[in-house]
């Protein structure tokens, strides 16, 4: 299950969505908004997504993870819009029978999400704004 939301992400419900009596392990990755980047104070982050494609690409990540690890359930939820410092931008949760696979699948998912999913983040500073990773 993947989704893009314009509201704050309910961690508890994302975790509950992957709980299963067949599993002994759940790993959850939570990406949050840092107050600074490279030493410079960030006021907020603005996220935008090409939503239908972002949902498809996140589902591809889940499909690829299922092909590599014995996953019971996996969920990716990404928030878009204007996020304040400390707020949650993305949550990835995965349940597996044993723990090594849950860590591996979760790390694979966030690494791949940052490479393939059409979501963009703009850092807003006191004196300007920057689309993250846009330039070499």
């Amino acid at each position, binding site marked *: 299950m993947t989704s893009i939301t314009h509201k704050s992400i309910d961690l508890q419900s994302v975790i509950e969505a992957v709980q299963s009596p067949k599993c002994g392990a759940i790993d959850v990755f939570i*990406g949050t908004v840092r107050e600074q980047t490279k030493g410079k104070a960030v006021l907020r982050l603005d*996220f*935008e*997504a*090409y939503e*239908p*494609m*972002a949902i*498809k690409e996140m589902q591809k990540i889940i499909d690829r993870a299922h092909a590599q690890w014995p996953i019971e359930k996996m969920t990716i939820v*990404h928030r878009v819009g204007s996020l304040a410092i400390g707020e949650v*931008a*993305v949550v990835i949760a995965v349940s597996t029978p044993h723990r090594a696979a849950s860590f591996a699948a979760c790390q694979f998912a*966030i690494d791949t*999400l*940052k*490479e*393939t*999913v*059409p*979501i*963009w*983040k*703009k850092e807003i500073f006191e004196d300007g704004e920057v*689309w*993250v*990773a*846009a*330039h*070499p």
Partner: protein
Amino acid sequence: MELNIIAFGIAKDILGSSQVQVSLADGKTVGDLLEQLKASYQDFERLASLFVAVNEEYASNETILSATDEVVLIPPVSGG
């Protein structure tokens, strides 16, 4: 054909709009479109990467475009 090009992130800033119309000869490819856009908007050359999605999938430069395609510019992604 007239193509409607949708842009996100810094691509939107470079175009000055989230959608632009581009005239392209029939049978032209994604690669041709990118070349034409980079000629018109030179800031695209400065990006770390620029991909095109056709109908919600990443498209290769060889993909032939048609007027009914949903064509979206994908500058470097930075979700997460």
